[in-house]
């Protein structure tokens, strides 16, 4: 066997020569005080009212500051640009903007910066995905009618009353409204956004601690610290370079090699060895994300009294503890209510609200499903999209758990849909015949956000078309209640209605995870699972 060795040596020599060339080609992105972070290509243009996913949200979080900001640790809404938001009746709000704030191009932030931005976001003409956030404001039905042409350009409920003051009139009482104003959709916009829209999209201008230095769509964005930032939370590093990765595995490998500083989505396959790989530079903290199984209430089979028992039984047949332990390696925790731990108990999170219905109890499950007349249609098909996340693994595990509990290995099967787009399509066309994967990532840390958009009659994300008069009435009451604690209690009453009907089966609370290199310190994730970039120290 002399030949192979010789050939092998030659191959190594060639390989080595090539690698040298390879080494010469690359170049660092970091630089002194600048960190690199993994990113995904934002799906929509980076307009604040058009961004409803995390990747675009990361950028908005760095370049914008709104009236309120959610504390990265507690999730509480604290005044940022708002000097004062006052209301006599929980319906008309008077907002005073702090003096001295500017956009990074020097333009002062005024009441008009907000009102113009909100009018833009609400208008049907601009196709903004987050338009419904302005749905509480008077006149929304004129600028964004359910069908047909819009009959007004601006919201009648918004009025500029001074250079730094404006009033907001809502179409119903909503005491929690000021606390929603930390959401990116409510960010102020400079005049340049309206006068040179294309130019703004190429290089967005905001009022946050960073400004965009360069943006090449689809591959990278460099943000540098804005030295003139007037806020209390300036950047503690010189800048952030966001690099687009198609595959989080590659980003993770790059962190291991020291080629990338921060990966904020540790792939499921690496969770097993992440602690040893990164030597403790790994964070795993609760995020405002709840995974559930939703049901098609437009299908009469699922909208019966018996089906209610079956749903509760199914919930009891799922061994959440085992699945979160073995599949998700504790990056998710079994859910015991319909909100998220990031709200805190004062904010409405109540561990154990689900009670026995969320405990693993095979005997109880069998009994309830039998009493309810068995699984509608004879067999449970859990629909999910197979292209992203590791949904197949957990759906199969949930089915296994149900099959074991019922002693019938054909009771439940997964029903994969090829692409996410098609999955959404089928949901939108009401073509579900059984439970389907539903995940909720909160927009703002309020209990209202975990209930109203999902279970209120005809709400924006009520995909299963669940409807319950008592629930709707309780939510209306809770929104009108000015006392925070009393309002939270009413929302929890509404949540109990969801529980008693098992409108959706809560599965688990999702954590955010991130890994980083030894160059960084003070790395944390906020409740939206976005890294708190401005607090990270480099070197």
């Amino acid at each position, binding site marked *: 066997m002399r030949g192979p060795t010789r050939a092998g040596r030659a191959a190594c020599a060639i390989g080595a020569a090539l690698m040298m060339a390879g080494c010469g080609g690359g170049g660092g992105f970091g630089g002194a005080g600048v960190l690199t972070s993994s990113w995904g290509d934002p799906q929509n243009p980076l307009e604040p009212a058009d961004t409803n996913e995390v990747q675009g949200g990361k950028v908005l979080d760095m370049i914008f500051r709104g009236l309120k900001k959610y504390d990265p640790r507690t999730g509480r809404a604290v005044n940022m640009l708002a000097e004062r938001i006052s209301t006599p009746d929980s319906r008309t709000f008077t907002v005073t903007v702090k003096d001295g704030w500017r956009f990074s191009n020097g333009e002062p932030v005024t009441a008009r910066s907000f009102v113009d931005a909100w009018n833009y976001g609400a208008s049907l003409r601009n196709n903004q995905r987050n338009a419904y956030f302005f749905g509480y404001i008077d006149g929304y039905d004129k600028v964004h009618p359910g069908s047909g042409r819009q009959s007004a350009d601006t919201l009648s409920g918004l009025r500029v009353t001074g250079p730094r003051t404006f009033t907001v009139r809502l179409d119903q009482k909503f005491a929690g409204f000021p606390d929603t104003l930390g959401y990116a959709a409510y960010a102020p916009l400079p005049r340049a956004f309206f006068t040179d829209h294309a130019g703004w999209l190429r290089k967005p201008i905001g009022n946050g601690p960073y400004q965009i230095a360069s943006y090449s769509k689809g591959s990278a964005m460099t943000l540098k610290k804005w030295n003139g930032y007037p806020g209390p939370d300036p950047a503690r590093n010189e800048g952030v370079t966001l690099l687009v990765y*198609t595959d989080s595995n*590659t980003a993770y490998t790059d962190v291991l090699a020291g080629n990338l500083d921060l990966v904020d989505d540790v792939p499921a396959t690496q969770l097993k060895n992440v602690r040893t790989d990164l030597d403790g530079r790994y964070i795993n903290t609760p995020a405002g994300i709840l995974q559930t199984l939703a049901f098609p209430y437009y299908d009469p089979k699922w909208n019966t009294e018996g089906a209610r028992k079956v749903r509760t039984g199914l919930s009891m047949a799922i061994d959440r503890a085992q699945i979160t332990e073995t599949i998700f390696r504790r990056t998710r925790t079994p859910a015991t209510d319909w909100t998220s731990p990031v709200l805190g108990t004062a904010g409405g999170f109540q561990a154990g609200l689900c009670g026995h219905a969320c405990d693993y109890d095979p005997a109880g499950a069998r009994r309830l499903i039998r009493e309810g007349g068995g699984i509608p249609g004879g067999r449970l098909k859990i629909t999910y999209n197979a292209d992203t996340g590791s949904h197949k693994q957990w759906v199969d595990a949930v089915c296994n758990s149900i099959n074991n509990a019922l002693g019938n290995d054909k009771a439940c099967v997964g029903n994969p849909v090829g692409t996410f787009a*098609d999955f959404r*399509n089928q949901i939108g066309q009401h073509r579900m015949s059984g439970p389907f994967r539903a995940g909720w990532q909160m927009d703002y840390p309020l209990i209202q956000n975990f209930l109203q958009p999902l279970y209120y009659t005809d709400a924006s994300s009520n995909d299963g078309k669940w409807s319950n008069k008592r629930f709707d009435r309780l939510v209306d009451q809770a929104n009108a209640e000015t006392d925070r604690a009393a309002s939270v209690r009413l929302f929890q009453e509404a949540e109990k209605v969801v529980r008693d009907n098992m409108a959706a089966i809560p599965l688990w609370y999702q954590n955010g995870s991130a890994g980083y290199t030894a160059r960084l310190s003070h790395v944390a994730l906020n409740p939206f699972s976005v890294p708190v970039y401005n607090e990270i120290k480099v070197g």
Partner: protein
Amino acid sequence: MGRYVARRLLQMVPVFIGATLLIFLMVNVMGDPIAGLCGERACDPATAAQLKREFGLDQPLWRQYVTYMGNVFTGNFGTAFNGQPVTELMAAAFPVTVRLTVVAILFEIVVGIALGVVTGLRRGHPVDTGVLLATLVVISVPTFVTGLLLQLLLGVSWGWIRPSVSPAAGFGELIVPGLVLASVSLAYVTRLTRTTIAENKRADYVRTATAKGLPRRRVITRHLLRNSLIPVVTFIGTDIGALMGGAIVTERIFNIHGVGYQLYQGILRQNTQTVVGFVTVLVLVFLLANLLVDLLYAVLDPRIRYA
């Protein structure tokens, strides 16, 4: 020759139209693009209807196709859902993928043919056996395994290369990904060259060339290799198209933002315009590469004439 080329170019027209129509239909069967565009939260009906109108999705399918083709002939490939013109995406993606393909093809030509000649001339020799075994291993191991393994070894364990390719994606950075992309084809080229060389080695013209006293090197390069290259050239020619379109796996592993990346994202987000646009260009590349291969035959073997 000129007439032959003209005829071939004309034949491309129906192939081109048929291929684009098929892709267009297939992408549309996947479902409503607006649902994918809106993401996890459904757009409200009014916004969805307006987006449909703006992208022309409320028209019947045949009219969408006619409009699309009309636009394509004026150089307008439509707009991706993130607001970028598809031509802009192409301008960013194709140069990267072309560079990657060039690296891969160079590997195939230089390493593949050289190994093929060496082994073909020494059939049964240990070198031959060794290379044959090596090619067998390369062919049987999937690309993503080779890619991930090289990435981990060279990028993380030994630190010789960066595990991922920077957005600039220069030739230097593309050497390892190019090798990974070329690996399987490279093994085929080696085996193909080896077989034809071994076959032609015993041909009369080789014996004649040796008999009239030509040096061995000249016999091999001018007579033996030139005659043996025809099947290899056919293979490499068709491989150009396959490498450009089929680099999805390699591009994903090394985070290269080329054609494979754009196609992958286009399919995931159900972005009809991106997918049809890129595949249309790939179809053109494939057709042209095939024409080029056919013309190369005449250069390699003067007995082949086109009229």
